[in-house]
């Protein structure tokens, strides 16, 4: 059964001037970890708000756990956990008070579903009397996740839970999601970090209200249409400028330690490219064919 279905969703703001969602359709299977990958302005938050029954789409329909987001919104709200992008717990309540409050609202107790939150809550416990507003980035996110889980939801909506969070805390957060998935919870999670796509079962790449592609991370990479090389030299900035000046360079972008390069006619242009760089960069450089990353795919699609 599909836990989430979105069917031709449209939504605009400011009298149609801002098209937040343009014909968004996708399905998420039960216990699937599904990622919405895209930068700010892609429409991710709007989509979450519609699925969490907080906003109505202009057209199209959608369901969560088999329930219609318009007709059955009350039932849906009992079954989903929603962690908004903006920290929305009570800043003046302590860690423990926030958790108790959310448990109470959903008619449950911390003890009842403790197994779900145990791993994260143990990290929070030393600070349980600290006010939520005094926690910093990673800890706030962990508390927010606990609060979203306290009523044992069948579907979790996580809107950019790792934005602004350091790489180590991000990794811990994804470990947690893997565990929740193994407990049968369906997870729809958004992120602007392209490298996190590989941690999802399937992803939708989104930009400016549209879905560019939906597939498994491996599937997306396999579809990458061009040959791609990584190039490296001692002066990376000079190399970038030379590589971009070659007439048949399709794209050349910095990718951390190396630059990623694509050529208009792929392998046909390879020899000419190497010769051009030798002539203009003058110093030694390395070039190597590589497999595209999700970020390469995203840039090629956008």
């Amino acid at each position, binding site marked *: 059964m599909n836990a989430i279905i979105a069917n031709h969703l449209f939504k605009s703001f400011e009298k149609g001037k801002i098209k937040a969602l343009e014909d968004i359709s996708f399905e998420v299977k039960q216990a699937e970890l599904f990622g919405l990958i895209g*930068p700010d*302005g892609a429409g991710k938050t709007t989509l979450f708000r519609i699925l969490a029954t907080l906003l109505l789409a202009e057209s199209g329909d959608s369901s969560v756990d088999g329930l219609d987001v318009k007709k059955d919104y009350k039932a849906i709200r009992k079954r989903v956990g929603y962690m908004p992008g903006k920290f929305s717990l009570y800043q003046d309540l302590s860690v423990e008070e926030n958790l108790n409050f959310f448990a109470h609202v959903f008619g449950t107790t911390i003890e009842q579903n403790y197994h779900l939150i145990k791993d994260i809550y143990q990290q929070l416990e030393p600070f349980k009397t600290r006010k939520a507003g005094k*926690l910093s980035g*990673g800890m706030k996110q962990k508390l927010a996740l606990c609060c979203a889980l306290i009523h044992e939801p069948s579907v979790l909506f996580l809107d950019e839970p790792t934005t602004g*969070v*350091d*790489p*180590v805390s991000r990794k811990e957060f994804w470990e947690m999601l893997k565990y929740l998935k193994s407990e049968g919870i369906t997870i729809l999670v958004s992120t602007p970090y392209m490298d996190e796509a590989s941690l999802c079962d399937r992803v939708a790449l989104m930009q400016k209200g549209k879905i560019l592609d939906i597939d498994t991370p491996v599937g997306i990479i396999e579809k990458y249409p061009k040959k791609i090389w990584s190039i490296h030299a001692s002066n990376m900035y000079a190399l970038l400028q030379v590589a971009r000046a070659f007439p048949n360079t399709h794209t050349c972008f910095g990718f*951390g330690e190396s630059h990623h390069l694509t050529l208009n006619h792929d392998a046909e242009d390879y020899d000419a490219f190497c010769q051009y760089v030798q002539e203009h960069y003058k110093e030694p450089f390395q070039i190597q064919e590589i497999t595209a990353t999700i970020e390469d795919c995203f840039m090629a699609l*956008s």
Partner: protein
Amino acid sequence: MENKEIVIQAQGLTKRFGDFIATNAITFEVYKGEIFGFLGANGAGKTTAMKILIGISKPSGGEAKVAGFDVYSETEDIKKNIGYMSQKFSLYEDLTIRENIRFFGGIYGLDRKTIKEKTDVLLKTLGFEAEADKLVSSLPLGWRQKLSFSIAILHNPKIVFLDEPTGGVDPVTRRQFWDLIYEASNRGVTIFVTTHYMDEAEYCNRVSIMVDGKIEALDTPQNLKKQFHADSMDEVFHQLARKAKRSE
């Protein structure tokens, strides 16, 4: 780097909040024209250190000079010689692009003629000529960040401090942003930048990594990878930050 002119010098720089030592005796130097990556986990003490260096927070101990000025007694001179860009607040959303440039030019004490000249150059470089009279609120995040950076270096500061400038920015614009950083650094502007994107750490000339208030590593990305037997800066960061005891 030959003839290293030092533009930031910190010696045992410390900041305490009661019993809590946010920044614990950090010592480092940053050279002119360098892209210096200032990394660390959330809560490692980066923001505290940065606030001291830009002259808005007084240290509890140690010494530091920024652009030749003392962080205790010459904070106003520091502010005149640096640019600062934060992720949260960068520009006035209810002003147009042109108005923001004029406003910040005025704040930095530039005269009208200079502001006008700089506005034209800036709009052209960024390709924003057609949008000059649009409100900043109508621009996509990536554009705003590019504009914000250009405004932060409008008054030709010696150093520009960038606090997570590319969070949430789309991949293509993120790279265009780094092109701007490279250009500025080539012109001799020193870049002091924090980021959570580890690929961006690789673009820096040197990188420091803070753990629990201390600088635990400082070197070129290449040497750090050698030192930690790691393939990427991501791995280096994980090895160091995993040791952190302090939970934010």
